[in-house]
């Protein structure tokens, strides 16, 4: 775990040698950024006519105050953790994956079609099959953006955004067309959704009478896998190396294009698993579209970025980070019921948290280099020039 806080060059532009001794600063400052965002949230609550203290108490009480609440929070955290762990891999390889939404959708579509095709395969086999299908669907969608960046020099920021749009329309096309519930057609209602998927693919409930299902341990397992991949395998070393310094990596014989593609494929695979779990862990056990991606993903493709950033791009720190944001989602619904504050507040707060956490890097670097001014200045200018190429 010695490498716990080795920074990504993408966010931290300097080679930080002393970070380990001062690593508490590295955690403290993003946390302050979150607190600042929550404080602004309190101001918003106040201006909406709600008491911020009782408001936050309602929120966090609902999310963490009971076994039922926590079970709900854990379920809401699944996609956040999976997408977040994937984002850790991508960002460590210096690839910005904004395509989580589309990768989730593609993973869900492929896993749903597997469940529709093989409804009678027993659970023990079908559940791994649909999860694998989700991973493949997401990985494929991520790899497209990766290959476009690696071989055609297309910015992955743009291609992933475009692929999100394509995936959503593809979902609408399939769910209104070949995958639609025959019952919807017969009744003439035509709601774009699949039929109740086979019970063999249902993710088993872990706690009687609650939402907590098999998706929770799966997500934890995958997050741990992401950690092993990044720091305990040669593949992970290559990914981080390419992210840290592509020129040196190429010189050392590491293929930059291959690893850029792989980073987006891994990242997409995790988002794809998240999509599959959303379908087979849902209460309706169907895949439904409301025409956009948010209705299906709950913006987890974007919010996963927040989770990963707050976790310092570390898959294991993403676990508490995902629980925090999952809890906020659960709490927001409780707040809406208790104080008539629309739950959209949480989306806005998430946005502020992203902005503040990203901006806080500036203060982190300043505090890390306080006291070694001259040396730090020289070092920063050197490495910065390299990274900027």
């Amino acid at each position, binding site marked *: 775990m010695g490498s716990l806080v080795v920074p990504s060059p*993408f*966010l931290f532009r300097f080679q930080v040698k002393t970070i380990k001794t001062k690593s508490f600063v590295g955690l403290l400052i993003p946390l302050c950024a979150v607190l600042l965002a929550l404080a602004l949230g309190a101001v*918003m609550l106040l201006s*909406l006519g709600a008491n911020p203290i009782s408001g936050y108490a309602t929120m966090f009480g609902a999310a963490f105050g009971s076994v039922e609440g926590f079970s709900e929070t854990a379920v809401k955290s699944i996609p956040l953790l999976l997408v977040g762990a994937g984002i850790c891999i991508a960002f460590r390889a210096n690839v*910005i994956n*904004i395509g989580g939404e589309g990768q989730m959708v593609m993973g869900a579509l492929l896993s749903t079609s597997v469940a529709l095709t093989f409804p009678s395969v027993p659970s023990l086999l079908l559940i791994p099959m649909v999860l694998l299908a989700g991973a493949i669907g997401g990985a494929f969608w991520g790899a497209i953006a990766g290959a*476009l960046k690696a071989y*055609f*020099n*297309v*910015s992955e*920021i*743009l*291609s992933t*955004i*475009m*692929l*999100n*749009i*394509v995936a959503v*329309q*593809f979902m*609408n*096309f399939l769910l*209104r*067309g070949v995958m639609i519930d025959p019952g919807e057609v017969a009744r003439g209602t035509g709601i774009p959704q699949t039929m109740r998927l086979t019970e063999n693919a249902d993710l088993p409930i872990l706690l009687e009478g609650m939402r907590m299902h098999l998706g929770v341990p799966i997500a934890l397992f995958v997050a741990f896998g992401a950690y092993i991949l990044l720091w305990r395998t040669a593949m992970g070393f290559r990914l981080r190396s390419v992210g840290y310094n592509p020129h040196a990596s190429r010189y050392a014989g590491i293929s930059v294009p291959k690893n850029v593609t792989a980073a987006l494929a891994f990242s997409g695979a995790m988002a794809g698993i998240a999509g599959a779990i959303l379908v087979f862990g849902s209460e309706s056990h169907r895949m439904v579209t409301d025409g*956009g991606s*948010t209705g299906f993903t709950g*913006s987890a493709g*974007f*919010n996963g*970025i*927040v989770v990963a*950033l707050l976790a310092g791009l570390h898959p294991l720190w993403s676990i508490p980070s995902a629980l925090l944001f999952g809890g906020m989602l659960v709490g927001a619904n409780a707040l809406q019921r208790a104080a008539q*504050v*629309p739950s*959209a*507040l*949480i*989306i*806005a*707060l*998430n*946005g*502020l*948290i*992203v*902005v503040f956490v*990203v*901006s806080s*890097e*500036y203060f982190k670097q300043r505090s890390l280099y306080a006291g070694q001014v001259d040396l730090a200045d020289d070092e*920063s*200018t050197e490495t*910065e*020039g390299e990274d*900027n190429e």
Partner: protein
Amino acid sequence: MSDSFAVMIVVATIASGIRLATPFLLASLGEALGQRSGVLNLGVDGVMLLGAFGAYYTVLQTSNPYYGLLVGISIGLLIGLFYGFITLNLRAEQGVSGIGIYLFGLGMSDLFFQKFVGTPRPILPFMPLDIPVLSGLPVVGEMLFQHSIIVYIAFGLVPLMSFVLHRTTYGLNIRAIGENPEAADSLGVSVMATRYSAIIIGNGLAGLAGAALAIELGIFQQNLTNAMGFIAIALVYFGAWSPKGVMIGSLVFGMVQSIVLQCKTFGVIPRSASDLAAMAPAVITILALVIVAKRFKQPSALTKPYVRGG
């Protein structure tokens, strides 16, 4: 008889294509300006949503669409100031902080809408402003000269921005700091001030784009823009950072949308096929990105924060 009917449909389709292209054009002109100065703004969609809500609410209260435009643009300018602070002063990573702005706009616009409006009520749209004489021309008049004021503003901005970028000192400064901020700085150009101005104006245009959209549609709803802001960013690449290129891209998008809408109304194509057609802009953009990445060079300093002496 059927001939004149066909002409009528074509004219209506083109006219509506121009109207639909307008928000794209405004937003992508703003984005192009920012990118030319070296700053990527991925928050366009969020700014558009906030501008759209601001404009919608203002018109709802005052019944004056022009106040709506003003409010929309002001909201954009304010966010631009904030975005400038975080990306220029705090040197925040631009790709990710833009997503933060997007989420903020998405959540806030929905929050305000639910809190202050609740049930959607239609607002007064713009009256079309017929250009004297020209609007009376057969066919062309209806196609080009019977639009609302915002359409003329948007398309008027294209030559204006070309002129500013290529014929004025300010434009030269913007292009210089987008390519080589160190060199520009050494000649006494303030990188900070120029980038601030480009970002603020760019976001103002995004806010205006949102306002134009809301007033044109006469309605607001959650996620009104539905990723239009992201397409506007792609259009900047599509148009290779030139105002004229951006305009052509916006028109292509507007026309595709308009044709799809017409086909839907006439039932020429089934619903499911229109979903496939809706994919077209994104797919075209990806292909265009491949070509643009080969042929054109993006501003060299794009997304790179400038540190003096760095």
